């Protein structure tokens, strides 16, 4: 039993339960209730972050491949489900990232929660946010296949309501599409889990990883890998299963987008590394070339879609554009995983975290622009020459440019290492995989980086540059506000740190990845 991980899950769960208390418990009148509820949310998520920092501080970096802070007790003996928690070098960064992003979202929401007719009270929002945090954290710390499935499902209901209630545009349709798509994927994933669990006789991830596919026939492995991979690919999302993502992002409120891109997508790729690679290695090896192909197509497709959206006169929505750019970036992650090499998988995990930081920041920025201008439509924002943020709101403009160049993979910033390593992995894939195929994927991904650079620079030019004297949609917009600075600075700083000191993350993930791939 280890109290830290249990507290990590129990704290937000308790917080979510407390928000069900009658409204009067939060204050005498509605305004006070709202304010206190939001502060309460920030407090709880802050405590969770403190816990994760303590967890990271106590983490034994010398043995990053070993599960630490382990709790392992029986929960439902009837079907062999154990309450098994633990973190290793792969999950630790994601746990910290999740806690950080949730806190930043909670802090941001204390000042900037969408309000209006038909929008429920802030207490409900805080409750959902905390429940979402439970699910996200649980996904990264559980070590039982059925618990993993449970955690995977916990996030659906809160995210559904965040999009459907606090979103904009065709929000209900987007939310429905999000939840139905993901549920279909995870139901199929469950079938794969059950197949593995019943054939291997255990649902325990560490035991299954240690067996490394022993005792599972090739057919079973391929079937299970297909089912599990399908479910995770929907979540990741891999092309062509991504079509729920742009709508969800476009409709979601800012914090919903940040968490969706920053954490929820990672649950899919984390599952690929944690479950697919070690548990059904033969099946994964059979399917890896196809996954790699989908990844390469995803990279090119995502960036082409973004280019089309960034063009003048195409009525491109900035949030939608960043959503498509996520498809491209997650393509790199999938490519790294598909290479089945330590280099590629390390790159994938690095890109995972980097994408969470950078895209989280981008969504915050675009959300702020949407708040200020009332629209995220690129053509409306840019006008004839450009939105001229450098002139009108220099700090926001600079941050946007920073996030954009980080996203396109400028060396020295976080976006660079993951994509380079993923491509390295594809250049020299694991034994048994077709090298020409993977080199082709690598070339396609390389083309993707060029396209990515192209559209991001177009976006920077159209949003940040321009003539400040031309008439704008809204005149005299505010520059960076204090609460925005508070919630964005950590992301920008970490982007820089991860870019300059990649060993911080790679040192953690490398031993664990080698362990999972069966090499160490």
């Amino acid at each position: 039993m280890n109290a830290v991980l249990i507290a990590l899950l129990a704290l937000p769960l308790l917080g979510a339960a407390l928000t069900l208390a009658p409204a009067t418990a939060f204050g005498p009148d509605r305004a006070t209730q709202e304010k206190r509820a939001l502060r309460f949310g920030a407090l709880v998520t802050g405590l969770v972050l403190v816990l994760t920092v303590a967890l990271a501080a106590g983490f034994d970096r010398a043995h990053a491949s070993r599960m630490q802070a382990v709790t392992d007790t029986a929960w439902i003996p009837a079907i062999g489900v154990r309450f098994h928690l633990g973190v290793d070098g792969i999950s630790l960064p994601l746990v910290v990232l999740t806690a950080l992003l949730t806190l930043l979202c909670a802090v941001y929401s204390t000042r900037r929660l969408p309000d209006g007719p038909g929008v429920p009270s802030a207490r409900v929002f805080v409750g959902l946010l905390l429940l979402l945090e439970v699910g996200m954290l649980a996904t990264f710390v559980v070590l039982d296949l059925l618990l993993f499935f449970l955690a995977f499902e916990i996030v659906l209901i809160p995210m559904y309501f965040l999009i459907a209630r606090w979103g904009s545009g065709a929000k209900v349709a987007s939310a429905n599409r999000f939840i139905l798509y993901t549920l279909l994927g995870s139901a199929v994933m469950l079938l794969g889990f059950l197949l593995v669990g019943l054939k291997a006789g255990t649902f325990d991830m560490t035991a299954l990883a240690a067996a490394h596919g022993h005792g599972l026939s090739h057919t079973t492995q391929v079937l299970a890998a297909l089912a599990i991979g399908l479910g995770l690919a929907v979540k990741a999302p891999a092309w062509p299963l991504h079509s729920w993502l742009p709508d969800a992002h476009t409709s979601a409120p800012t914090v919903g987008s940040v968490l969706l891109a920053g954490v929820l997508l990672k649950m899919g790729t984390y599952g690929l590394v944690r479950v697919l690679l070690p548990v059904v290695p033969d099946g994964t090896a059979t399917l890896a070339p196809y996954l790699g192909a989908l990844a390469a197509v995803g990279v090119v497709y995502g960036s082409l879609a973004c280019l089309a959206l960034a063009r003048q006169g195409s009525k491109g929505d900035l949030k939608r554009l960043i959503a498509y750019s996520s498809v491209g970036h997650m393509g790199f992650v999938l490519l790294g995983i598909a290479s089945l090499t330590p280099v590629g998988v390390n790159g994938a995990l690095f890109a995972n975290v980097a994408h969470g930081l950078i895209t989280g920041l981008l969504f915050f920025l675009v959300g702020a622009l949407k708040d200020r201008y009332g629209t995220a439509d690129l053509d409306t924002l840019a006008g004839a020459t450009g939105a001229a943020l450098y002139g009108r709101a220099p700090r926001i403009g600079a941050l946007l440019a920073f996030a954009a160049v980080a996203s396109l993979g400028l060396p020295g910033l976080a976006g660079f290492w993951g994509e380079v390593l993923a491509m390295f992995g594809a250049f020299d894939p694991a034994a048994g995989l077709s090298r020409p195929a993977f080199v082709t994927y690598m070339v396609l991904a390389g083309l993707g980086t060029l396209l990515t650079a192209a559209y991001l620079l177009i976006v920077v030019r159209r949003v940040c540059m321009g003539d400040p004297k031309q008439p704008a949609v809204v005149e005299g917009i505010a520059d960076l506000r204090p609460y925005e600075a508070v919630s964005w600075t950590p992301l920008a700083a970490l982007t820089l740190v991860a870019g300059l000191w990649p060993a911080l993350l790679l040192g953690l993930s490398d031993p664990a990845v080698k362990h999972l791939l069966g090499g160490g």
Partner: protein
Amino acid sequence: MISSVSAPVSAAAGHQLLGQPAVHPTLLAVSNPGGLIQSVDWVAIAPPLIAALTALAVLLADLFLPERHKKLLGRLTAAGLALALLALLPLTGGHPRATFCAQNVTGATDNAGCSYVADHFALVFQLLALGGALIAALLSLHTVDEEKLPSGEFWFLLLSSATGAALLPASRDLATLVVALEVVSLPSFALVGLRRDGRGGEAALKFFLSSVTATAVMLLGVSFVYAATGSLHLSAIAEGLGQAPGQLKPLAEAGAALTLVGFAFKVAAVPFHFWVPDTYTGAPLPVAGYLSVVGKAAGFAGLALVTSIAFRPYGHTWGLLLAVLAAVTMTAGNVAALRQRSDTAQGAVRLLAWSSVAQAGYLLVPLAAAGYAGSAHPLGATVAYALIYGLVNLGAFGVAALVGRTAPDNRLDDYQGLFARRRWAALALAFFLLCLAGLPPGVVGLFGKVVVFRAAVDAGLGWLAVVMAVNVVIALFYYLQWTAKLFVAPTTEATSGESRVPVSLAATLSLTAVGAVVLSVAPQLVLQVVSGSLF
């Protein structure tokens, strides 16, 4: 109960007693007089017996109680059902108790010749039947008053039906099974029709006709099976089917098929499901809840007994049949539920009715798996799922009854913004619906689905598991739409002035909600039936 005792008559026994003229000579013709007198294990049959006795007590009390004290009848019913539930406790330990046995060998562990066996399977289904009836009774306490239903008749019918439902899972021969099933059904027709308006009458008639047809078909099947195997005892039938002579094979197979068709009617499997929505909307709401849980549980218990004991030799045939039936039932139920419009009258009840058809499809999956696996082990999944479904479905009907008090039309639109008006009722309904959908925070519903999936995957029924996965997604859509409606912020603030909730209704709702939450935290409580042996 059938007690086909055929003790051999011995003439020698009579001679020994010739010197005692006080004893009537015909009695002395039996060598072993004790063999004729069945020693009834009263403890084993206590649960259905208590329910039956309470039914009689209610009927008698109704004659003597003055009108203003009629409320006591409902309390008497609830107390009787609670007592019957308590009577299950002494039966849980040790090996299964059996009574009404043909070869009355005391202490024998083999209960093959017994007509009533209180094993785990029977006990769990009795728990479901009596517990479901108790919750339905508690929900009905105020309905009987408010809708001016004849209270003596109502409680008597409910208890009689519950008696049948408690008897059925323990019965081990076809005659007892059919009688028990009819004891469940016959009072139900009257219960549905008790609300004496046009809708109630139509509902009762539809229910009656389809159910009687099912019984007729089933009886025909039972007689064929009896003709082919020479026995009504389930385990004897299994042996008889294996050894049936060639020319009787078609008869036996036809009999088995017809018996299954009869049960398919009772569990409202497609294509025998058309009575469900009309019957549920016409009946008083607690009765609809009762039918959807207890009535269905009785049908499933019978189906499980007949298939996995009596027709075991035909496992692959009925396994396939049930698998197809399951796939079609869940799909048809879900698609129909999906098409419910939010503004039609009784839309909420119709949605619950169709969803219960779909849930019947999920419940059929482990039965089909049992056919493929050739053992009764997968049945545990059906039992566990039925328990979970029973609890949350009755809870959902309870909230529907609550809303129906202020909005008699019970449209789905009447649930709009329920959270703002009745916070806890809305939260409870949301939880029940998510349990039915199988999505967290309804954890217990999720694990209910997991064990069903597990049974299917384990038996190699991958295609059925995939069909069910798709169905779970379809079902989520309508459950979620309904859930989302509850939390729509009200456009006007003037929502006060709601009538007070009757205490019994509030208590029942909290009971079911707390039960569902507790099971979500500790699913082992209900899922333990999956791992243990049932028979």
